[in-house]
C-alpha cells in the first residue's frame, strides 16, 4: 500500500494536470545584467554565467547590456523570417500527420530561436550535430523546403531513401550531420569531429544540441570530459525545455542548480541563456564559436526554454502537465519577442508581419503540393524496394545479394 511519504527522495514538478501552472519558483536574472567576459576566460570563471541567465531583450523588448550582439535590422528580420517559417512548417506538418500523410512528426514550437539564432551565429561551414528539435537550422542554412517535406513523407525524393523516421534529417551539403533516434549519442561524436577539425588544421568547428532530459545519459558526460580534456573546438548546447516527454526537468537535474552548472564540474566555460531571446542565443553562440575557433576550448550552453507543444505526434501532454503552462512561461515566445523588438526599432510593423506570415504559409502549402507530386508514404512512389539492401556496407556481400533475391526485387 502507498506510503505516506516516499522513503527516498523522488522530485516532482510544481504543477500537474488540474493545477494552476506555476513558475513562480523560477528566478530570472534581468536581461542585460550578466557580464560578458573575454572569450579566453578560464572556464571556472564563468560560474556566475552558468548559474544566472544571460538575456538581451528586456521587458520593453529593447536590447540591453554587454551581450547585445548589435545586429543589423536586416539580420534580425532574416532571423524572424526563419523562425516564422519554422513555425508555419511545423504547424502544417502536424496537420498533415493528423491526415495520415506521414507516420510521425515532432514540432519545435517555442524553441525556434535556439535553432535559428544558433545556426545564424555559426559559420555555414561549421558542422552541426542536432537533436530532433532543431529543424529551424535547416531553414537558416537555406535547405529546400520541398526536400525537407519529401523526407518527412518518405517519398521517392526522400534523400534518406525512406530509412529514417520523419524529422530525422540529414543534409551533408549543409553541414548538418545525421539525427539519431538514440538520445545523446551524437554529443561526444561532435567532440571527436571538432578534434578532427583541429587535426586537419581547419577553422571549422562543431556544435551539438541535446535535450535536458538526455543530459542524464552517459554520453552527455562523455562529451564533456572529452571536450575538457582535449580543449576541443565544440559548442555543447543543452536545450532545457522543461520536459522530457512526461518527465519534468528535475528528474535529470537532480539537485544541480542549472544544467549549465554541470559544465563547471568539468572546468568548461558554461553559460545559461534565455532560449526564447533570439539575441541572447545569437550572442552566446557567437561568443562560444569565437572561443572555440581561437583555441580556447569548448563551451556548454544551456538554453532555458519551454516545449510549447506535445513531445511528438505520439504524445498527449494533458496527461502530465497542466493546460496553459506554455502561456504561463515567464520568458514569453521567441517570435513575438523578436517581432516586438524590431517594431520598437522602427524596423518592422504589424502589417508587414501579417503579410509575411501569409506569404510563408502559402510557401509551405505550395511546397507541400510539390513534395506530394514525388509520392507519399501510403500511395508511393517510394525509394525502390531494393534500396533497403543498399548502404548497409559499401558493397553488398553474398548475404545481402541473396536476401534481395529472396525478396524478389
Amino acid at each position, binding site marked *: 500500500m502507498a506510503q505516506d511519504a516516499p*522513503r527516498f527522495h523522488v522530485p*516532482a514538478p510544481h504543477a500537474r494536470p488540474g493545477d494552476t501552472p506555476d513558475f513562480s519558483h523560477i528566478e530570472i536574472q534581468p536581461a542585460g545584467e550578466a557580464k560578458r567576459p573575454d572569450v579566453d576566460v578560464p572556464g571556472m570563471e564563468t560560474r556566475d554565467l552558468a548559474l544566472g541567465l544571460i538575456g538581451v531583450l528586456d521587458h520593453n523588448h529593447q536590447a540591453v547590456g554587454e551581450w547585445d550582439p548589435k545586429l543589423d535590422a536586416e539580420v534580425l528580420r532574416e532571423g524572424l523570417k526563419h523562425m516564422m517559417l519554422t513555425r508555419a512548417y511545423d504547424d502544417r506538418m502536424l496537420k498533415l500527420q493528423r491526415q495520415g500523410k506521414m507516420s510521425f512528426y515532432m514540432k519545435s514550437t517555442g524553441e525556434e530561436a535556439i535553432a535559428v539564432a544558433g545556426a545564424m551565429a555559426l559559420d555555414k561551414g561549421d558542422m552541426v550535430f542536432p537533436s530532433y528539435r532543431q529543424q529551424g537550422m535547416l531553414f537558416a542554412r537555406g535547405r529546400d523546403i520541398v526536400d525537407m517535406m519529401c523526407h518527412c513523407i518518405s517519398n521517392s525524393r526522400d534523400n534518406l531513401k525512406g530509412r529514417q523516421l520523419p524529422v530525422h534529417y540529414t543534409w551533408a551539403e549543409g553541414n548538418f550531420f545525421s539525427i539519431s533516434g538514440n538520445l545523446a549519442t551524437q554529443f561526444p561524436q561532435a567532440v571527436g569531429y571538432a578534434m578532427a577539425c583541429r587535426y586537419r588544421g581547419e577553422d571549422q568547428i562543431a556544435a551539438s544540441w541535446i535535450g535536458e532530459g538526455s543530459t542524464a545519459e*552517459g554520453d552527455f558526460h562523455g562529451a564533456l570530459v572529452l571536450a575538457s580534456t582535449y580543449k576541443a573546438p565544440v559548442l555543447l548546447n543543452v536545450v532545457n525545455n522543461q520536459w*522530457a516527454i*512526461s518527465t519534468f526537468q528535475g528528474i535529470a537535474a537532480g539537485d544541480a542548480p542549472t544544467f549549465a552548472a554541470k559544465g563547471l564540474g568539468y572546468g568548461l566555460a558554461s553559460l545559461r541563456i534565455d532560449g526564447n531571446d533570439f539575441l541572447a542565443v545569437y550572442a552566446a553562440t557567437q561568443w562560444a564559436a569565437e572561443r572555440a575557433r581561437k583555441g580556447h576550448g569548448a563551451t556548454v550552453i544551456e538554453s532555458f526554454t519551454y516545449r510549447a507543444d506535445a513531445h511528438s505526434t505520439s504524445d498527449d501532454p494533458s496527461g502530465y502537465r497542466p493546460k496553459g503552462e506554455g502561456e504561463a512561461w515567464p520568458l514569453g515566445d521567441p517570435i513575438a519577442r523578436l517581432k516586438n523588438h524590431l517594431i520598437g526599432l522602427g524596423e518592422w510593423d504589424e502589417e508587414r508581419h501579417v503579410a509575411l506570415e501569409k506569404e510563408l504559409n502559402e510557401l509551405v502549402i505550395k511546397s507541400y503540393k510539390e513534395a506530394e507530386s514525388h509520392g507519399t508514404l501510403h500511395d508511393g512512389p517510394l*525509394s525502390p524496394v531494393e534500396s533497403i539492401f543498399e548502404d548497409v556496407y559499401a558493397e553488398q556481400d553474398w548475404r545481402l545479394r541473396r536476401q534481395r533475391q529472396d525478396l524478389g*526485387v
Partner: protein
Amino acid sequence: MAKMNMIQSLNSALDVMMERDPDVVSFGEDAGYFGGVFRVTANLQKKYGLDRSFDAPINEAAIVAMAIGMAAKGLKPVAEIQFADYIFPGLDQIVSELSRIRYRTAGQFTVPAVIRTPCGGGIRGGQTHSMSPEAFFTHIPGVQVVMPSNPYDAKGLLIAAIESPDPVIFFEPKRLYNGPFEGHSGGALASWGNHPKGEVPEGHYSLPIGKAEVVREGKDVTIVAYGTLVLVAQAAAERAGIDAEVIDLKTLAPYDIETIARSVKKTGRCIVSQEAPRTSGFAAELAAQIQEECFYALEAPIQRVTGWDTPYPHAHEWSYFPGPERFINAMNAVLEA
C-alpha cells in the same frame, strides 16, 4: 476472468505483485507519474506511492545498475527500458554485471531483477523503435530471456519473472500490445477481446519459464516462433492450408528443446523464425540444436524465416517484416525437399 489486451495484462501482473510483495518496485523513463509511454505501468504510482513506481532519468545503464543494486539488497525491481532499441547503453551492466553476480560471488549475492522492454516492428517506428535484439541477450550466460505472444502468457510469465531467483530480460512485442497481428500491413486492428488468450485471470497465476507451447497442432512441418511471429506463422499455415505445427517458444533462454524435438521428430520438417536480422540470430541457435537432436528424423534442411541483414527500414517496413508470404514460401520449400 477478464478481457485484457497485453498492456492491461502486464499492468495487472505488476499490480498483483506489488500488492502481494512490498519489495516489488517499478521504474523507468516516463514509467512513474505518466505510467509509461505504452501505459504498462499506469496507475501504479497512484496506488503504491512515489517510491514504488517512479520516473527514472534517461540513462539506461543507470536504470539497469539501479535495479542490480536494489536486487542485491533484496528488493524485486522491475525496470522498464522504453524501447528495446534503447537498451544498449545498459548492455554493459547486463553483460558484465547483472548476469554474473551469482557466479562471481559463488552465490553469496544474487540480483533477480526484471528488465522489461517493448520490442519488434510493425508500428512504423523506423530503425530506432523496431528492433528485436533478443539474440544479444540469449548469448549472455546468467540471464533468462522471455518473450510472450499474448495477454494471458504475458501476465503469467511476468509474474514468474518477478518471482524467479535469477534475472530476466522480458521482451514485450509492442505490435501485439493492443491486438493480435497476422502480418498484413493494412486492414483494421484486431482486438484481443475476442481472442481466447485475451481472457486473463485477474489474480495471481504464473506460467513456467522455459516452457514452450504447441499452439497449433499439425503433422507436416514444425514452425518454431516467438513473439509476433507466433501469430503470423499460425495465420500463414491457415492461409496456405498446410498442416503445420506451430510452437510458441515463450522463453528463449532457457528454451524448451524437449517440446521442439518432440514435434520435429513427429513432422520431420522444421522452420525456425525470428523478426530480427538473419545472421547470428536466435533462429540459428535453434537450427543448430534441432539438427543435433533430430538429425535422423529430418527429411529436409531446416529453413529460417527472418528479417534481412539490414537495419529496420521505415518506409519499406513491410518488405522487411517476415510476413505470412515468407512463411508460406518456407513451408513449401521444406515440404518439396
